[in-house]
């Protein structure tokens, strides 16, 4: 853990050091360039805002009404038959839709079952091995103004499904 933590903490400052050293050596006007690039960042954040508000509100309506929970209860039996533990199913279904909700569920599962239990390890692996598909598509397509997403959503969700099944198999094989 010591090594991993120090790699993560050293990586960004060292990267900045290298960029600034090389740029200064090549006589790039560093500060002016930084400001110019930063201006894009402001524009980007504001163009993202309506996309995020729209998506997050819609998801929260679904969640707060209880419909999401009902849906999970409805399809749980099918997933249990495939061998996915029932405790983990809400996390598996929420992971591609809402990052904060998934993180909350992972924390809750680790807290209730213990970090070193089977469920705790499975939740940890699942949380780490897939990302929030809907958020990523909203942010990236939204930021550059792509209207038609093509088959992007299908690919993302199918890959999530494979990732979730892979987590269950890998954790079962390694930690049993």
């Amino acid at each position: 853990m010591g090594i991993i933590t120090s790699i993560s903490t050293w990586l960004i400052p060292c990267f900045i050091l290298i960029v600034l050293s090389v740029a200064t050596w090549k006589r790039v006007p560093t500060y002016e360039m930084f400001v110019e690039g930063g201006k894009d960042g402001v524009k980007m954040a504001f163009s993202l805002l309506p996309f995020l508000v729209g998506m997050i509100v819609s998801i929260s309506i679904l969640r707060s009404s209880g419909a999401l929970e009902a849906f999970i209860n409805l399809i749980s039996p099918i997933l249990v038959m495939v061998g996915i533990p029932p405790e983990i199913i809400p996390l598996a279904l929420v992971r591609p839709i809402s990052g904060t909700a998934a993180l909350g569920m992972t924390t809750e599962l680790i807290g209730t079952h213990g970090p070193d239990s089977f469920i705790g390890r499975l939740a940890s692996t699942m949380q780490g091995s897939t990302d929030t598909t809907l958020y990523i598509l909203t942010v990236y397509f939204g930021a550059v103004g792509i209207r038609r997403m093509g088959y992007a959503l299908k690919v993302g969700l199918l890959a999530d499904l494979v990732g979730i099944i892979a987590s269950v198999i890998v954790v079962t094989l390694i930690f049993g």
Partner: protein
Amino acid sequence: MVNLIWAFMAMIGIVYAMFNGTMEEVNKALFESADDAVTLSIGLISILVFWLGIMKVAENAGILRVLTKMFRPLVVKLFPDIPRDHPAMGYILSNFTANIFGLGNAATPMGIKAMQQMKELSGTDTASRSMITFLALNTSSLTIIPTTVIAIRMQYNSISPTEIVGTTIIATLISSLSAIVIDRLFYYSSLRRK
């Protein structure tokens, strides 16, 4: 597609709330979540400004070009639509690198920059083949060190907080490889339909 999903999530939620008696919760969540989303976007400003600023310096110093050259053989195979020396390659690689090390904050601005470059290449408002491959890899997660999860495990006094790094790497590898395969399958079947 996204229009349907977006509208249906809200519509199903509201109709369900009518019968479930949770209209009050929905009403509350509606405005609270809008508030949360704005806070999230505003929170993104600092990260976006800082990283896009640094990346602009890196681009001008030629660092992105060096990075692209180093990993070119691999990335050229993944993104056959992007010309070899195009700046999009540099941003894609920076995004992947940041993702692999679990630096989500740095990955997003670089990823958006990569998307902008790819949009310039395609020149339409329809997602291009490279964009979908790029996002498929991003959604399948490339993280090999899940720092947030390790931190949560430490908080709950795990005997070995990092023991899940191994299983996470294997699961990530499987989901990323299948993302590439699924993406290819969809691409070729979309060609056949045309």
